[in-house]
């Protein structure tokens, strides 16, 4: 969350010789990040990012307090003006604190829901616009001024950091406020006129007759807030359980500044200075008069929590040695009470840091950041190096990518989320997708790659896109223990060829398999999405590796493999084969094949004729004439022409018999 703090407002609480730029730099190094400083003609406005654990910094005073500790570390003078400590306001003298009940209004608290309530009645409020000094400050912090009553509450929230509410006293017709949980189905109308039906469990105020008259800590309701006719008001502060605020604010979708602060546990100790400051401003600006005692229902005030740690603990985490006195002085400056007894440190946490600082590591952080991380040395760790993952897939995936790249493939990264139309089987559905086009998790890379290829329909040249990515397969089964399982994430390799001919693209896939020393075979088998008779399944022995073929109704050729299976069947070490002592005889034979002959089968049967045929390759096609190159080799001797002829004749006899093939004369 960000907060804007005008420099002019800050220096009301901070006496310093540091310029705004320097304040910004120093705060960023040791405290909250000052994202930018906006210069206006008479002021500088800090835009500060406050992390969720530091709600104590969400005010002008909070930032002044932090700066007063940080700036001296950089050699600047800085002193926090003791505004909240003891120097109470004039008005408080007149207010007699009544711990429980006011004569004017009967309050019934529920301590489980609300830690503290402060209330005071003011009469004769002169409603109107705020003076310019006040409204200008609100504008600078990004708050729209409305009227003086509302503006005062906002002003105090920005200055001190505690949200504060103002009721129209006369509209609280029953003069009762009961703190209770909402029941499911109850409804209320917020001050901006929106009706909400409650889910149950929200903290609400009841007027004693069952009507909800406030959604405390989040937003006022239309039936009790100040109107243009307001004359008397009830100033009000409460400390509702932050978890309940959080749940209600998120559940109803009401994200006011008050809710954003309250859900992070605003320090209840701030309540008193906040309400006194508001009273002071009401008297000054709206000419109001206090008309009741100040009610303070606060059954269990803050008792400082103690954290114990040791010098060794701190040293072991920092990696440097900070002097005991310096540790103590840093903590004291931050308003922690710290005391050493030998090596042991005991720290009392101030109320405004109670929800943030709880364990010794937190103390370590406070010391280290104020000391300055920028002063720490920088050194690589020593110690044992962990063992490498034994069956790591990463090198294999990289190898595949590089092989495909080498043969002209272009790698793409497409989104894992796809629209419903692209879902072919049971797929994971997102509960809160960004749009209709990304509602499901893909179970195949095919739709994404078709889309990728279509995106390049303007390309004149052939192209080949590929991707290695997970697909997400829901698991139907539940384990024996009855527990649900995460979906299977399967790493797939897929590619698509556009304007490639069948042989060229198949060659790329075959080279990929060969380069991984995979023993593979193709089996023609039809399947959905592929043109009939134009798809092959690729296997290694009996293991299914993947598929390759021409897509039905598209001009694309597509292939895909399961990466892990591919990795498993690929040989990582290759045994050395003795170099042949005798040269092979190589010859080209051109066969005329009848129509509809499967060349793959022809090659297989030529090879099977003799173990002396080492290799057969198709090297040329001209009309119905297919030229094969045949390697004859006997490892034990050089084959004679007569021996080769004998094998050749067997080959010719075999292909004639099986396929009706004849040698081209």
């Amino acid at each position: 969350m960000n907060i804007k703090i005008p420099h002019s407002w800050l220096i009301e609480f901070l006496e310093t010789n540091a310029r705004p730029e320097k304040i910004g730099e120093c705060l960023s190094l040791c405290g909250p990040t000052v994202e930018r400083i906006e210069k206006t003609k008479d002021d500088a406005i800090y835009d500060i990012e406050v992390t969720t654990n530091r709600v104590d910094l969400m005010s002008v005073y909070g930032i002044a307090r932090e700066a007063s500790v940080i700036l001296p570390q950089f050699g600047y003078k800085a002193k926090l003006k003791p505004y909240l400590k003891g120097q109470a306001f004039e008005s408080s003298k007149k207010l007699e604190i009544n711990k429980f009940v006011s004569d004017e209004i009967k309050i019934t608290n529920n301590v489980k829901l609300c830690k503290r309530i402060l209330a005071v009645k003011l009469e004769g409020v002169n409603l109107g616009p705020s003076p310019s000094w006040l409204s200008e400050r609100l504008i600078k912090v990004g708050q729209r001024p409305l009227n003086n009553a509302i503006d005062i509450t906002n002003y105090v929230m920005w200055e001190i950091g505690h949200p504060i509410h103002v009721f129209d006293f006369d509209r609280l017709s029953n003069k009762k406020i009961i703190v209770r949980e909402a029941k499911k189905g109850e409804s209320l109308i917020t001050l901006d006129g929106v009706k909400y039906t409650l889910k149950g469990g929200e903290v609400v105020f009841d007027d004693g007759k069952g009507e909800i008259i406030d959604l405390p800590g989040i937003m006022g309701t239309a039936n009790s807030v100040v109107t243009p006719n307001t004359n008397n008001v009830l100033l009000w502060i409460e400390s509702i359980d932050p978890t309940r605020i959080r749940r209600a604010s998120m559940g109803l979708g009401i994200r006011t500044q008050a809710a954003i602060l309250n859900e992070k546990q605003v320090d209840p100790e701030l309540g008193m200075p906040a309400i006194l400051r508001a009273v002071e401003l009401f008297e000054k600006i709206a000419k109001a008069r206090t008309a009741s005692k100040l009610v303070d229902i606060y059954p269990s005030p803050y008792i400082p929590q103690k954290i114990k740690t040791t010098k060794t603990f701190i040293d072991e985490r920092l990696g440097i040695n900070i002097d005991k006195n310096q540790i103590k002085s840093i903590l004291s400056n931050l308003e922690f009470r710290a005391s050493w007894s030998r090596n042991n440190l005991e720290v009392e946490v101030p109320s405004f840091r109670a929800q943030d600082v709880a364990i010794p590591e937190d103390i370590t952080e406070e010391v280290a950041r104020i000391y300055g991380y920028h002063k720490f040395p920088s050194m690589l760790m020593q110690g044992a190096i962990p063992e490498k993952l034994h069956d790591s897939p990463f090198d294999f995936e990289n190898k595949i990518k590089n092989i495909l790249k080498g043969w002209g493939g272009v790698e793409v990264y497409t989104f894992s989320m796809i629209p419903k139309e692209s879902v072919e089987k049971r797929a994971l559905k997102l509960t809160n997708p960004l749009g209709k086009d990304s509602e499901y998790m893909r179970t195949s890379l095919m739709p994404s790659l078709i889309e990728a290829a279509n995106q390049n329909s303007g390309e004149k040249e052939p192209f080949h896109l590929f991707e290695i990515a997970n697909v997400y397969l829901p698991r139907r089964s539940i384990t024996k223990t009855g527990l649900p399982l995460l979906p299977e994430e399967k790493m797939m390799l897929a590619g698509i060829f556009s304007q490639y001919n069948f042989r060229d693209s198949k060659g790329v896939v075959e080279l990929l398999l060969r380069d991984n020393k995979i023993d593979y075979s193709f089996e023609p088998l039809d399947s959905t999405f592929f043109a009939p008779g134009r798809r092959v399944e690729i296997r290694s022995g009996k293991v299914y590796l993947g598929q390759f073929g021409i897509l039905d109704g598209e001009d694309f050729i597509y292939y895909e493999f399961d990466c892990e299976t591919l990795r498993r069947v690929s040989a990582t070490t290759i045994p050395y084969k003795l170099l042949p002592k005798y040269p092979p005889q190589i010859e080209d034979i051109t066969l005329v094949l009848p129509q509809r002959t499967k060349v793959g089968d022809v090659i297989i049967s030529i090879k099977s004729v003799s173990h002396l045929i080492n290799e057969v390759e198709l090297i040329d096609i001209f009309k119905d004439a297919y030229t094969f190159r045949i390697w004859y080799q006997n490892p034990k001797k050089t084959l004679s022409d007569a021996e080769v002829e004998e094998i050749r004749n067997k080959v010719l006899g075999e292909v004639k018999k099986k396929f009706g093939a004849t040698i081209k004369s």
Partner: protein
Amino acid sequence: MQEDLQNLKNEALAQILDAKSSDELENLRISYLGRNGKLNKLTKNLKNLKIEERKQAGMLLNDAKNTLVKTISSQKNKLKGGVREWFDPTIPGKKPKIGHLHLITKAIDEISEVFKQIGFVRVRYPEVEWEWFPFDSLNMPENHPARDEWETFLVEGKHHPKYGRIVLTPHTSSGQVREMWRVKKPPIRMLNIAKCYRRQSDASHSPMFHHFEGLVVDKGITIVHLKGTLDYFARTFYGPERLTRIRPYHFQFTEPSFEVDINCDICLGRGCKVCKDGWLELGGAGMVHPVVLQNGGIDPNRFTGFAFGWGVERVLMMKSGLKIPDLRLLYSSDLRFLRQF
């Protein structure tokens, strides 16, 4: 010697210009420029000269060689039949089709390489994950406001009684406890690189992106080691003059937590128009929270650790000054884009 050389050069030039056939030229080339040619013989004499003369003579010798080579080749082209030997070395080469790896792949490779050198083990954990891992295990219980920072995608399906709903992991920190479970006993030096998802889509956010997460757990790991590792990364990945600084921040799963900046590549930290104060934000880091170590089955009294998790796309953009106007372009498949890298 200089005189000899001059004479030899003139004699050769005269013969070359007089030559009538390419055979004749070839013989002349061998006799003057060949291994045992006349010029080489002179070269051998160089060593007899005084040092100060040697340099001068050497230059003349080279000059003579060059002149003869040029004259022979121009004479060859002038001769009848020279056309047959015409050779044009300026003709463009025939290029094989060239492929491209994606920018993200290249960045991941480089990042892995950097951390591999200092003993990090690369791993990968589920993208579709129980919410316990990216949140509860990291000290962010249900309804914690810190969860808002990650706009998390939820997946329909059965809830796990212990691990809650199924989500798309919004960061790679979800792998921290999983890695502790895998390794069981430190040392841990993990590099987890994976796809992550968040409900945001604009010019600087893509709903799918990549994170890399470093996690180190061992005895005596301190802030000093975290700084050492960050600086090592900055120097190796970005260049020897780059360094990092850490500033206070807050994450539920680290204590202390840091925001990491790197010095600007243009001004190296002095401050300039691009970076304003000399530093650019790189990402988050911190010392592993004791609760997280406990969730991972590691005793926080004996072991400490640090972690950092950053966007691959972000460190990539900052490296190359790519200036890609819209991050989502990385996930389009436009060949005009992909072929640039």
